[in-house]
């Protein structure tokens, strides 16, 4: 409730920020269901390489996306220190494999900047906004571009 | 204290309608599916008033009313018949068994409530 109040008052939002290598990213907190430690995933046949497989999230079958690999970088080598951010996009849930979660930030509408043209096409598609906070730059992720459940035809 | 009405009807739809009507008027409502069920519900629910259908399996409304009246504790409890039937001979028969009143289905919610208010207080 408190959250909604503040969002209404300045048009801003809460974001969860996390690290991937040296870079900092963020997702809107409203999309985040929970954050949990990495556990070994069951690989899925015929899946894109960035899908690490599925894990058991209290009885639900949750696909986990290696975000680093999704961005075209090398696959992560997950350890128990790695973290899975469980997000919800529309009716589907999936996990994002990231190095570590930094903190929860409140950003206002003015803090949000469009992604400059220098970024490559693919990266731009994944990043909705840039947030400049002090000397940090946080890339706010467009979750729906990361993963959507595939229909039979697409698979 | 809320007054309790025992509604006896073999139709689930009717039971739900009666329940909705009476609960909205702040009655406590107990439900039973036929006369037999109604009799066994008496003890459990100790109703202040009874609303019953006539045409029911096992024990119909007439039999139910008579059996209720046989019990000392319910000799004067108001019993309202709620039936699609409206034949005078049927009404007479219910009266003789000890029914307090007769309302024809489909019933009007306000009517049912005001009658019960009047009968039960």
């Amino acid at each position: 409730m408190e959250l909604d109040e503040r969002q209404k008052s300045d048009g801003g939002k809460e974001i969860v920020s996390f690290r991937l290598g040296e870079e900092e990213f963020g997702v809107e907190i409203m999309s985040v269901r929970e954050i949990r430690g990495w556990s070994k995933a069951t690989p899925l046949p015929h899946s894109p390489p960035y899908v690490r497989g599925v894990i058991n999230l209290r009885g639900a079958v949750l696909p986990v996306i290696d975000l680093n690999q999704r961005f075209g970088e090398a696959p992560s080598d997950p350890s128990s220190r790695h973290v899975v951010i469980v997000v919800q996009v529309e009716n589907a849930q999936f996990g994002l494999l990231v190095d570590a979660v930094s903190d929860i930030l409140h950003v206002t509408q003015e803090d949000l900047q469009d992604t400059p043209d220098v970024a490559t096409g693919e990266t731009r598609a994944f990043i909705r906004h840039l947030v400049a906070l002090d000397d940090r730059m946080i890339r706010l992720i467009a979750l729906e571009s990361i993963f959507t459940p595939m229909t039979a035809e697409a698979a | 204290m809320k007054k309790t009405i025992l509604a006896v009807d073999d139709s689930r739809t009717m039971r739900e309608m009666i329940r909705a009507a009476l609960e909205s008027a702040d009655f406590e409502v107990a439900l039973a599916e036929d006369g037999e069920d109604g009799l066994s519900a008496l003890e459990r629910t100790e109703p202040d008033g009874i609303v019953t259908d006539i045409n029911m399996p096992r024990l119909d409304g007439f039999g139910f009313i008579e059996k209720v009246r046989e019990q000392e504790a319910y000799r004067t409890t108001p019993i309202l018949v709620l039936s699609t039937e409206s034949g005078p001979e049927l009404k007479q028969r219910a009266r003789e068994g000890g029914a307090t009143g007769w309302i024809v289905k489909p019933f009007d919610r306000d009517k049912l409530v005001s009658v019960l208010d009047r009968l039960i207080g």
Partner: protein
Amino acid sequence: MDPMEEIRQTFFTECEELLEALEAGLLSIHDGTHDEETVNVVFRAVHSIKGGAGAFELDALVRFAHGFETTLDEVRSGRLEPGEDVVATLLRSADVLSDLFAAYRDGAVPAEDTAQSLLVELSTLSGAPAPAPAAAPPADDGGFAPVPLALDLEAPAFEPVPLDLGGGDDADAADEAASPLRHYAIRFRPKKDLYRRGGEPTLLLRALDALGELDVAVTGIDAADPAALDPEEPCAEWLIGLKTAADRADIEEVFEFVSDDSDLSIEALLGLEEPQAPQAPQAQEAPASAAPAPEREAVPPPAEAQAEQAAPEPEAASASPAPSQSEGQSKPVVAPKATVRVDLDRVDRLINLVGELVINQAMLTQCVEDSGPMNREVATGLEEFHQLTREIQESVMAIRTQPVKPLLQRMSRIVRESASATGKSVRLRTEGEATEIDKTVLERLADPLTHMIRNAVDHGLESPEKRLEAGKSEEGTVRLTAAHRSGRVVIEVADDGAGINRERVRQIAVDKGLIAADAQLTENEIDNLLFMPGFSTAKEVSNLSGRGVGMDVVKKAIQALGGRIAITSSPGRGTTFSISLPLTLAVLDGMLVRIDDHTVVLPLTAIIETFKLQGGELHRLGQGGHVLSVRGEFVPLVDIGSELGFRDRVEDYEEAVILLIQTEEGVRAAFVADGIDDQQQVVIKGLEDNYGTIEGVAAATILGDGRIALILDADNLVERAALPPGETSAAA
């Protein structure tokens, strides 16, 4: 949801059940397997439908139900003998009632033509006049009139109402508009019966008090004598003065139900009310005369009244129809089992949670085992926990299962329709109605089963002439049976017709290019051609099972439910379609198979046998392909590890475990794995919601250690393993 809408839904659900009970009852009357209560059940079903329909103003349904009920009442009272023709009409009426109901449920406008003509038939049977179509509800008083809600406000209490002292209600209404205060003098003398029927004078006084200013005096008793207040000896009389803006009708309403049980007069004073009440009693007139109760005087109840109460119930009673031979025996009144209705979502949530519990239990057990030697209590406790969990799981699963009875019953209508459309005489026999199956399976079975039944009547059975020629009875029989068989439900549709004309089936398949002209097919293979897409044996498409829907569609629907369909036929004696279905969609008996460090689950139903590979059985075929010789038959080898992308194709299959698989189509294949871990029931978890569909994978499950294992789609894997073209697979 809006509460009325919710009740409306309840009504629709209840209606479906009532319609089922109605049809079942009529069918048992038809077959002569009914008892006394059956007619009552049938009558009540229609009666309840009418009642509910009235509440929701589903007029066409009310009208038809009323006519139907009237005829059933004749049957119930024994005035109308339920002979074959009568029951046929009643069955058709049940169909129409069902159609009208379905129209309302689906928000369509009910077509009343058939209904109207049937109403005429029904009224011929009952001797009552048929109601006019879609006209205003009949205003007859004799029995039930479908009273719309507004009318009900005036629904009389006990009749006759002796209150009306001749006052014009219209005048009352006019007066009320001005709402002047009026004075009434009310005399009220309760009779004994008033108390006996739960009337309570003080409550009536309170209700009057609510109308205005009240002034009450009690006469006729010595108020100081408490004994005189004994309700068994009512001799008190209330004299009530009421100053109110309410009109006479309001006051009368207060006394609505007690008017017959009391002497009552309501008198307007001071000329403020409309002039009327010419016969209004004088103050000290004998009270009894004011209430012209037609039946009897009040106190004490004459012996005749008591005798009447003790006498056998008159004919209108539903519970006791006319005395019959079985009167001497105690009536087999079986109490219906108590049931609760629960939202399916809640059940499914419970099933999910129990699934969690099963997994949690397995994980806990493993944890304890891993942590070193167990003491005896812990081991026993864990074992009991395991047992309990299992039992809970089975019980919860059972909640979702329902008897197939309603489904089988529904088919009798299909048989009737198909029979009359084809001019055949058909009897449907059903067995195993109590067999239970998952609700969802049950629902999705309706369409394929309908089609199979139509097919049996349409194509399976011969015409009456042909049957006679063949020395059979004119009437064909379709047998519909359900049974549990080794953890599955088997449903069979069998006709006693001519059997499949294999010559013709083969020719059609050749003509349609489905098989080569010189193909060598076994009888069974020919029979299975019926399941091929685009196959239709009917020379001209009949209006029933035609419409381009073939048995292939039926087969797909059954497969989608995790079921299999098979066909057997014997010339001259008939054809049997047999469906085998899982009990539930929520769990599956699976074999846990190891491939490297992956564990996958294969449905037990797909596995014929398992064995270790011995040298010499394996033969190379094409590039990287292998076939395995199993008792003289060559089956293709499917390396599921590489098929699923878990590893490259293995070159050395020595010591590998082989799972011999048979698909729904009867195609066999040998799956290669590293080992078999276990055989257990697994909880099915869909992948679609969060991930999507995966080729070769049907679903997932959670293992005892909390990890996820994939449940493989054996058929799909065999298909994908698309063999080197040529000699192998076709003939099995």
